[in-house]
């Protein structure tokens, strides 16, 4: 088991956003979390790498308990990739520098090694020719792909995707999803929060449906989409298909 999440709770002020979430991920699996907005899906991802500290609950990466106070969280984070909705590329650095920074400062690679590795990943996402561009000079889709390259370069055990295409213009979504699909096929362990049902249906090994801070149902895509067990799941899917007009 690569990732295990046990009974996560998180409260913001009076509102409890995560009310005891538990699940696990095996190596090579891709799980997609779907659900209405504001149900704690992003918070869940941030609690896994402790960008947000959970109030209660535990998380294990392989056999290391991430939530333990004794653990060196920076070292753990270097093993977990995180792709943000807003990309969060370092504004003052070129694409190449963005991908290199972690390799040089966190993994201690030499500049030469780091550059080679970084260029590899940029090529993998199709942006080798944009290595010297600044984020502001790239389209949204390109920025997100660089952001994925940045996460990949660290050789993570697992990558968390927080609504990676929600901030993109429709015509740019495809290029990012394509990269993600390739990644999944190549055996990367991925946990994705998204509204892209087409992607969920074709790429996910398992779908997790969350609503109001709890997991309502989880299962393989065929089951969730065609014959959901819970009425709330069916209700959500009905609303989504109305909104997006069926599978994309």
């Amino acid at each position, binding site marked *: 088991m690569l990732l295990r999440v046990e009974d996560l709770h998180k409260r913001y002020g009076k509102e409890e956003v995560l009310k005891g979430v538990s699940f696990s991920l095996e190596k090579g699996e891709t799980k997609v979390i779907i659900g209405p907005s504001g149900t704690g899906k992003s918070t869940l991802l941030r609690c896994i790498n402790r960008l947000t500290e959970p109030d209660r609950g535990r998380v294990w990466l392989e056999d290391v308990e991430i939530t333990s106070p004794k653990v060196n969280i920076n070292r753990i*984070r270097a093993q*977990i990739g995180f792709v943000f909705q807003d990309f969060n590329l370092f504004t003052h650095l070129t694409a190449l520098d963005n991908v290199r920074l972690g390799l040089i400062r966190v993994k201690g690679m030499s500049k030469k090694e780091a550059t080679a590795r970084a260029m590899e990943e940029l090529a993998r996402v199709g942006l080798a020719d944009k290595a010297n561009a600044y984020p502001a*000079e790239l389209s949204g889709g390109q920025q997100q792909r660089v952001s994925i390259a940045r996460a990949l370069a*660290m050789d993570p055990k697992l990558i968390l995707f927080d609504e990676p295409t929600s901030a993109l213009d429709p015509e740019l979504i495809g290029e990012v999803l394509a990269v993600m699909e390739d990644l999944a096929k190549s055996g990367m362990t991925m946990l994705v929060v998204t509204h892209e049902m087409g992607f969920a249906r074709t790429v996910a090994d398992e779908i997790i449906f969350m609503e109001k801070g709890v997991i309502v149902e989880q299962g393989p895509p065929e089951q969730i989409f065609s014959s959901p067990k819970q009425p709330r799941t069916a209700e959500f899917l009905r609303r989504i298909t109305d909104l997006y007009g069926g599978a994309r």
Partner: protein
Amino acid sequence: MNLFFSWSWLPKLAQGLLLTLELTGLSMALGAVLGLILAILRIYGRGPLYPAYLLASGYVHLFRGTPLLVQLMTIYYALPTVGVRFSPFVAGILALTLNTAAYQAEYFRGAIQSVRAGQMQAALALGLSRLQAIRHVVLPQALRLVIPPWSNELIYMVKGSAVVYLIGVLELMGQAKNIAARTFRNFEVYIVVALFYLALIFLLTLILRWVERRTRIPGLGTAGRL
């Protein structure tokens, strides 16, 4: 109207100008160091270093809320009554430094805080420590963002340095006053000095704009798309 001007004034005035530059440069540099420390205390000091945070905030409010002249006079005329005596030059540097540090603290704080939170988050997500994140991600951006207000402050300090002539420092204004007292050509001397300042500030503005252009990064600052 009867105007008179003499080239013989220029050497002394140039000497004064040099001292003006010294005063401004020294106080801006020292003020920057102190200001950066104050800014960091104000931003990050709330929890762990609360007393230091309070001191920094109190300092900033005090030195921004009171006139430079009062600060200068207190240091030079009032402190001797409790046995702390400074030479005019040192008193001038001290007053100017303490004053500009408070303003620079606020400019640094504003710049650091306008680096978006997502930048820090992304840095942490990569595994960088807080200190590394501040050093490699936040500060490089903040230092660029602070250039416009800092340039403004530099101009203010050049003008502020003029005030120290009142305690006898022979910078540009001080030299001018001496010449005026000797020749009784107050208006003319001061017009010449005004031209000196105009030229100086014009040059400084050009240099600062060049620095800004050289360090500019597309997307960083108000000119960006993000």
